[in-house]
């Protein structure tokens, strides 16, 4: 398996091209699939809806998490050990 992964790593351009082809095939499959079982209007009427949803949702999650982290949620690892409420001897 290690050799197979290294084999793929030496041919990254081909791997990336295959991934793009797979994405296109997935979208094409979605275009022809029976949508009568879809729960909502948007699924039935917006072409490639779940492709768009998948991309936008992933981008949104990354964006929100990054904003959240930058907004002060991410702090140094020793945050609780460096508290002003602790005496110097406890730091």
């Amino acid at each position: 398996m290690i050799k197979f992964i290294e084999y793929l790593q030496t041919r990254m351009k081909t791997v990336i091209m295959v991934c793009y082809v797979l994405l296109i095939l997935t979208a094409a499959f979605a275009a022809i699939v029976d949508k009568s079982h879809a729960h909502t209007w948007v699924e039935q009427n917006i072409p490639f809806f779940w492709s768009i949803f998948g991309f936008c949702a992933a981008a949104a999650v990354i964006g929100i998490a990054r904003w959240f982290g930058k907004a002060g949620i991410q702090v140094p690892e020793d945050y609780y050990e460096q508290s002003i409420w602790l005496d110097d001897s406890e730091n």
Partner: protein
Amino acid sequence: MTGSFIHPALIMIIGALLVPFIRGPLRKPYLILIPLLTLGAVIGNNSLNGSFATFQFMDWQLVFGRVDKLSSVFASIMALMALIGTLYGMHVEKTGEHMTAWFYVAGSLGTIYAGDYLTVFLFWEMMAFASVFLIWFRKGPQSLKVGYRYLIIHTIGGVVLLFGIMLRYQAVGDIEFSLLDVKNPELYTWLIMAGFALNAAVVPLHSWLPDAYSEASFNGAVFMCAFTTKTAVYTLARSCAGMDILVLLGVIMALYGVIYAVMENDIRKLLAWSIVSQVGYMVAGVGIGTELAINGAAAHAVVHILYKSLLFMGTGSVLYMTGKTKFTELGGLYKKMPATFFFTIIGCLSISAAPFFAAYVSKGMIIGAGFETHLNWASWLLMLGATGTFMYNGVKLPYFLFFGKNNCSDETWEKAADPTWNMMAAMAFGSVLCIYVGSAPGVLYSMLPYAVHYDPFTAYHLAETLQILGFAAFAFFLLKKYLEPVDRLCLDMDWFYRKGGLFFLWVAKNPLQWFDTAWGEVYRAVGLRTLMTTSKFWSWFDWNAIDGIIDGLARTVRAIGGRLRVLQAGQIQYTMYFAASFAAVVLIAYILLQLS
């Protein structure tokens, strides 16, 4: 025990108590035998239906063996998990670690089979007090503190639950563990729900989970990731099914866990956040409350235990072999741990609901139930969460751990290797189960509480899933520079009680201590002097007034005593002699006078 019901918790408890006496070559077979017997007992119980092992205790009937489809499906996966977890940690020498893990399992099984709230509470607390040792046994620099935080939070949750049980008993007059009137909730309904919700890590009562699970021992975390939260999901499904607020709380959990997992640098903490997120789906399913939703919650609990334990085994192997858990200290490990990489990837695909992998057959049930009950907002947000789950668990975890930048030190890289055979066997077993249940869910569906009319293998579901996974992965590789792990801590709700605790200590050590010292000075300067003056006065008063009276009395008494002492000393005979002589003289004189 009644009839053919055998309580699996009893097997686990007796098995745990005997572990110290089983040594040498018998230890490993014994460690497998007891979980196998437990699993056998659960499978045997699955054919039963009704209440067993009932005992009269004061005015209450305690039911230790309530068997129905809901309890059977949860008990089955817990017993299976006990087997997988024990196999994974079979080489661990510490007897106590096996004992506490089994007591923990027994607590979970006891809760699941309990038919009354007292029995629930008994086993509920057993879970909390046993599992804390799985944190302490790691003996890391933070283990003790984390364990105490875990214990305090669960004790508070237990007290809230007990308070709810008592109020319910006062109002209803029985302790039967059954569905509450969730459409007309009373205070006790909220308290019981909150007690269960704390163990389910419902936001904002969730911070104990990432705090504790990331600090547990490498195999302790494998047990912990399965039992506490899923037992709580069972109790919520049993008592609070259809409680509307749970839909909102479940959705918040699903999204909150995703955001924190995306930010996380610690691989096991990432998985802990993932539990918060995935249990959110189950809680939302319980809140929706329809047959499809409850089936979905139960099915998702089963597959979640399978893939989450597999993921914790994979990351636990990394911890066990390298001693590291941070992305910023790891990376590129596929070369050194190829089997671990392979099994972890199966776990990643399973949690991502990739076609033919575990969650593919369960997650859609909950989301579909939301759409069917016109809770579209909930289903859309759960879909958003599902996409995020694939982002952090399906792509980020394997990419930055096994590929990506190699951040390993020379020492870490040297240590990195696939783990012991039993750990590999447990991961292989978990992987097979993840693929089996995802590809052939018939057995799982037949065990669910209600008849299943759900087919995950439709072309539309397949197309939907492939699109989401494919394009989310595309977004990841376009935006992955924004996901590079950084060695930072993520503040969470525990900030309030951790900072609150530190503030309390500071207040105790500084203002309160200052006040105490100042008060001591004031007392010394003012109070003591006043006291001395007052004391002198009272001393004088005592000496001159009180003692005067007392001494006067004493002197009088002493004088009387002296007289009495004189009498008691024998002088009274003289007195009587003189008196008698005088009387005789007077009498003789009188007689002589009469005669003359």
